């Protein structure tokens, strides 16, 4: 097991090298550079700017300098906001995105798990159909349709919430619901399947025969095995919530990292694009690593493959 972890950990290093290289060169050679603005800049100013960002150095030096700094956690200075570093921007916006992500994941679990369990206990009844219907609706309604629709109904028509912004506690409701719905649907579906597999097994019958209450049988015995598919889904879910926030933060005008990333592309803010790409990639890689470890830990059969 320790060897597996070590091997899996070492494997992420080449992946990270490829990503930092690809991101650096794709951004460096992006057509329409960061210093091309409508206002004509004199050659002197341009030269100064290029010197400020180290663009006047030979390319290989730029690259190694960037990698060296990135290894120390320094992602450079933004090209749009001249006096702000990428690290400052991340420090500013990341907490908002993390809060949104955490709330969405929580919403997904709170809605999805009970629905899936309920459906598995009464298979092929109206409750099951209701749950499956919800799951299918959630999976097929993209966030960029659901989000504006929720705003239309609950913010504009009924006036219960603000249509956009991130100030009051109530501003959290619609965005996390929108982002969490898809994953709630998926989790409900997976929980139902997992629970149905488990509920027919002998140890559940044994537990019942020994006089355990239904609640105890479900919570203590069945759920443990039944939510295994959900556990392995959590990795992709967190990754999806991470990128899903691009749309949500745009729809609800939330000052998070996702919107900053989309903006950085239209601003041609090279260092910000590169830094955020690196951040997202690192996050996703370590997420994959964690999921692999969790699955190996839960399923001994996979350990030796």
């Amino acid at each position: 097991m320790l060897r597996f972890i070590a091997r899996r950990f070492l494997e992420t290093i080449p992946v990270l090298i490829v990503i930092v290289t690809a991101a650096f060169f794709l951004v460096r050679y992006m057509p329409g550079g960061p210093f091309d603005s409508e206002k004509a800049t004199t050659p002197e100013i341009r030269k100064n700017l290029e010197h400020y960002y180290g663009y006047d150095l030979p390319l290989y030096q730029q690259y190694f300098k960037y990698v060296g700094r990135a290894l120390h956690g320094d992602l450079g200075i933004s090209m749009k906001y001249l006096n702000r570093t990428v690290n400052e921007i991340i420090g500013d916006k990341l907490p908002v995105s993390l809060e949104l992500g955490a709330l969405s994941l929580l919403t997904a679990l709170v809605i999805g798990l009970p629905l899936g369990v309920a459906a598995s206990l009464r298979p092929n009844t109206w409750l099951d159909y209701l749950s499956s219907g919800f799951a299918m609706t959630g999976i097929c309604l993209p966030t960029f349709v659901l989000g504006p629709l929720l705003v239309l109904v609950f913010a504009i028509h009924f006036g219960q919430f603000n249509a956009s912004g991130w100030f009051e506690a109530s501003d959290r409701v619609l965005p996390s619901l929108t982002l969490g719905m898809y994953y709630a649907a998926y989790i409900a579906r997976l929980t139902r399947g997992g629970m149905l597999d488990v509920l027919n097994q002998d140890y559940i019958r044994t537990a019942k025969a020994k006089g355990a209450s239904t609640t105890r049988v479900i919570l203590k015995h069945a759920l443990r095995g039944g939510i295994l598919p959900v556990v392995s889904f959590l990795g992709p879910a967190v990754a999806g919530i991470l990128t899903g926030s691009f749309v949500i933060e745009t729809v609800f005008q939330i000052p998070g990292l996702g919107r900053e990333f989309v903006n950085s592309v239209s601003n041609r803010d090279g260092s910000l694009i590169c830094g955020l790409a690196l951040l997202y990639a690192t996050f996703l890689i370590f997420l994959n690593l964690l999921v692999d470890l969790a699955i190996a830990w839960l399923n001994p059969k996979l350990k030796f493959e």
Partner: protein
Amino acid sequence: MVSLSPKKLPSPDVTAGQLEQGHSLWHDAWIRLRKNKLAVIGGALLITLALLCGFGPFFAQAYYEQNLDLGAVAPCSAHWLGTDTLGRDLFARLLYGGRISLTVGLVATFVALTIGVTYGAVSGYAGGKTDAVMMRIVEIVAAMPFTVFVILLMVWFGRDIYLLFLAIGAVEWLTMARIVRGQIMTVKRMEFIEAARSLGLSNARIIFRHMIPNILGPIIVYTTLTIPSVMLLEAFLSFLGLGVQPPMSSWGSLIKDGAEKMEEFPWLLVAPGVVFSLTLFSLNFLGDGLRDALDVRASKD
């Protein structure tokens, strides 16, 4: 004691007329699929939508025809789904948008299918070090944040929708490659492959003539399920303003326009949103139906 006398074999005296009518695997699957109401409804809806989007524009108003005096009107008899702020008929725009969205879905899926099947088959068939290296490459590409990748490609090559097809296809082949590789690895150890190899067939022929036809079921199912995710990705990009550019419109960009103007003109959001979601519904139901119908492990008979 074991009897040593030779056992009499049953004589093959069954006449042709008594033979049970055989069903091919595909015929069985088709019957099972037809029993699945949701899958049939999904399939019918898709065919209707495809025909409407394919031929409808010949009869409808041109999607770019503006009528600034008219402006945005709610759905009425002249404009079934209303018009947008430039007085363009929304129904016509939906049909044209559907052409683009469906084409992106099909073409990008085809790209993903071609790359994924070939890559997965080669990797699974070769095995050993080649397989390890190829799968590591898949992992590296999968670890790339795909939105960044596609966005950078869009920035690089201008806003050409054919490149959008390619970019999306280049992202979506990974899962297909993994599935095909897994299937190939199970098929590889079977006797008929050994037989083919002992006949001296080339590797390419073994892979494409003998292995792929035997794993067609999972490939078809996964292809059906790739189309909605590709369409979703295209709409996602168009919604962020990075996909299809005006005056052309896909369902994604129509939803984007609608979301911007929904306060005054809600139908601009509702119509494309409903059509797009219905398409995703149909594709997912059809994919699930096909999986149940074709997946031998899941079926009882």
